[in-house]
């Protein structure tokens, strides 16, 4: 009995202790809730609607200034609208008419029309004839200035200034660098189908200021911008033999990149602009080569019996993506810049061509032919996350905007009167826009941001 009793006691104690513990735990649990003063709520869903933005006509003291101001506002508005990320509001809805950009706007008036951001600006011709353009970007709800800049330029350059303003707005509101102050080189195609005259042309990113660069005697193909934006490389048929050329946009000077026994194709600059990577064809076999532009030394990168072509460097210059039919069909491959570690990354149905590495490095764009449809898509360099952005009768030749968010491509329309036109599409695939050109146009190449 004694023993039993003694044994019992610790047991009871334990039980009691456990009971107390349980009570304490419950109390603690009760206390823990009120102890957290602020309720934490995670917001994981917003909307992807275009941001409503009010862009007022830039004011000017003289009529000429004011006219320029309205033009500039129009270009900015067009740029932001085409990006698909902004919704410029109709000027007719504006209640407040800011005239002095150094006075805070009446934000309440802008909230009424649901503007989230507001752009005000003014234009003034300086005594020396230059144009002074100032602007301020306001947060209508935060009631503060987000960015304010001023530019001096020659009056003829007003479009570039407008693009620069649009870039500043775009960057401040999205976090991405802009791409509006850029140009597009493309192949202008005039004349009837089957007898097209193809000339190299250049224009602003929004389709303005088109200018022809070659006379059309020789067929030109696949122009590509140098990362320093002053040079392009392209393919031209001379005496019915395709050769790779360099063209200096400032001086208009052209030169052949090496003179190879076979045919050279698909040239593209390295990220540092010091080399050109291209494919060289002998018989039914094509391999990838690089050429150092200063020493003119040529290095062979791939060596297979298949057709390896369309090389494109990663922005860090460490890798090259290219197209090869070594597996039986055209597919996208990635290798180190020295040719080692060649491996296939595309495994979908159909054939893949002309891979282009994004300037941001995170994606590779490609043209894909499957089920009779031409598609433009993107894929991660490791081969994951393939995504088709646009699909149709014909799509080809993607080129990246310098911020890696928008692609331009060309799309051929069927029929006798059909022809190629330039289109832009952003990474969501939803915002497709036609780019207006004076003639049919193909093979676009997007420049980096201008200096």
């Amino acid at each position: 009995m004694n023993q039993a009793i003694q044994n019992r006691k610790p047991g009871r104690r334990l039980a009691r202790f456990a009971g107390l513990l349980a009570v304490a735990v419950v109390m603690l649990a009760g206390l823990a809730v009120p102890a957290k003063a602020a309720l934490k709520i995670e917001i994981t869903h917003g909307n992807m609607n275009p941001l409503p933005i009010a862009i007022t006509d830039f004011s000017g003291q003289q009529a000429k200034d004011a006219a320029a101001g309205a033009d500039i506002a129009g270009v900015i508005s067009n740029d932001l609208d085409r990006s698909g990320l902004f919704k410029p509001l109709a000027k007719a809805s504006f209640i407040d008419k800011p005239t002095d950009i150094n006075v805070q706007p009446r934000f309440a008036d802008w909230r009424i029309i649901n503007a989230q951001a507001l752009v005000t600006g003014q234009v003034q011709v300086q005594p020396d004839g230059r144009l002074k353009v100032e602007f301020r970007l306001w947060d209508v709800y935060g009631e503060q200035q987000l960015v304010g800049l001023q530019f001096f330029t020659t009056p003829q350059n007003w479009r570039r200034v407008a693009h620069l303003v649009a870039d500043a707005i775009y960057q401040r509101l999205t976090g991405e660098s802009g791409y509006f102050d850029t140009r597009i080189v493309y192949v202008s195609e005039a004349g009837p189908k089957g007898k097209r005259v193809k000339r190299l042309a250049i224009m602003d990113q929004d389709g303005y200021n088109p200018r022809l660069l070659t006379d059309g005697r020789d067929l030109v193909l696949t122009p590509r911008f140098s990362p320093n934006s002053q040079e392009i490389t392209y393919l031209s048929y001379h005496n019915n033999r395709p050769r790779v050329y360099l063209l200096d946009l400032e001086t208009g000077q052209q030169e052949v990149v090496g003179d190879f026994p076979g045919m050279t194709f698909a040239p593209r600059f390295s990220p540092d602009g010091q080399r050109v990577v291209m494919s060289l064809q002998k018989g039914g076999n094509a391999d990838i080569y690089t050429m150092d532009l200063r020493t003119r030394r040529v290095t062979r990168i791939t060596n297979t019996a298949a057709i390896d072509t369309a090389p494109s460097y990663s922005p860090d210059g460490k890798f090259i993506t290219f197209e090869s039919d070594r597996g039986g069909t055209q597919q996208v491959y990635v290798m180190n810049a020295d040719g080692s570690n060649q491996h296939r990354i595309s495994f979908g149905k159909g054939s893949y061509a002309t891979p282009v590495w994004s300037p941001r490095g995170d994606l590779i764009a490609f043209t894909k032919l499957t089920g009779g449809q031409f598609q433009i898509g993107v894929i991660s360099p490791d081969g994951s996350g393939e995504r088709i952005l646009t699909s149709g009768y014909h799509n080809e030749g993607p080129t990246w905007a310098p911020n890696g968010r928008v692609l331009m491509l060309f799309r051929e329309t069927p029929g006798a009167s059909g022809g190629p036109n330039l289109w832009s599409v952003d990474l969501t695939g939803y915002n497709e826009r036609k780019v207006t050109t004076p003639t049919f146009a193909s093979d676009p190449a997007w420049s980096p941001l201008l200096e």
Partner: protein
Amino acid sequence: MRNGLYFSVALHVTVILLALVTLPAPKVLPSIPSAVAVELVDIGDVTNFKKSDKPTDKVKAPQKRIVKETPLPVAPQQDQPKPVEQKPEEKPEPTPAPPEPKPEPKPKPVEKAEEKPEPTPDKVEDAEAEKVKKVEPKKEDEPKPKKAEAKPAKPKPTKDKAKKKDDFDPTQIAALLNKVPDKKEKTQSEESTQAVSNDQSESSFASKLSMTEIDAFRAQMVKCWTVPAGAANAADLIVQIEVSLNKDGTLASPPQLVNSARLSDPYFRAAADSAMRAIRMCQPYKMPADKYDGWKDLELDFNPRDMLGG
């Protein structure tokens, strides 16, 4: 004996462990994808867990029912067509509406009463309900809290309510007939509000927002928050903002960015700006006024990761 003791100890320990494991778990619920539909639902039905409803609340409820019946004839006067979104609970509100013109407070108490236990009069309610909806009481804030309280009470005190209802009916009817019984109703409403505050102090859980309420808040945010495109770049672009709210759902002070160290990163700055704009745009927030303690201070973590898969 020993076995019994060990068994008891083991049992206690397991109970404690279970409590430890299971109690905290409910907090974590991640956001539910489609919150919008929930908006229309009366907030708080599911999660409220008050221990005991005070008799005052119950009393109010019964009044409501009674009121419904009587006011119906009056209701037609009010032509305002409101959306029928709200559930049956709201119907009781309309009943008070008939008296509306005079005393707004009346409708409030009625709302509480809304409870479903009154299935019998459903037909009448339906017919009336539409009318009632039209009558919306201007002071919506007050009624809401009452509702919340009433909800928790529903499960346990149904019997009580019924009894109380019976008691109150006569007075209510009289009031209704008078059309000008503001005083009585007002006093009732005052009582109810007091009761609410007491309840809150009693149980900290009373002010805790339910998941539906949190989702309703998120749903408001979806409309206001325009996710910046650049956010696609940064996987861990989480913007933390502290917000203090007034009881009417407006901002009590400018929102404060908690993790401001990364403002030099343009992506983060754009994301922070967008979150700030969303918070300012979205006010006033529709929140259950009776749980003000639960939402007067909020920390909002804006995380775009789910938005930018493609």
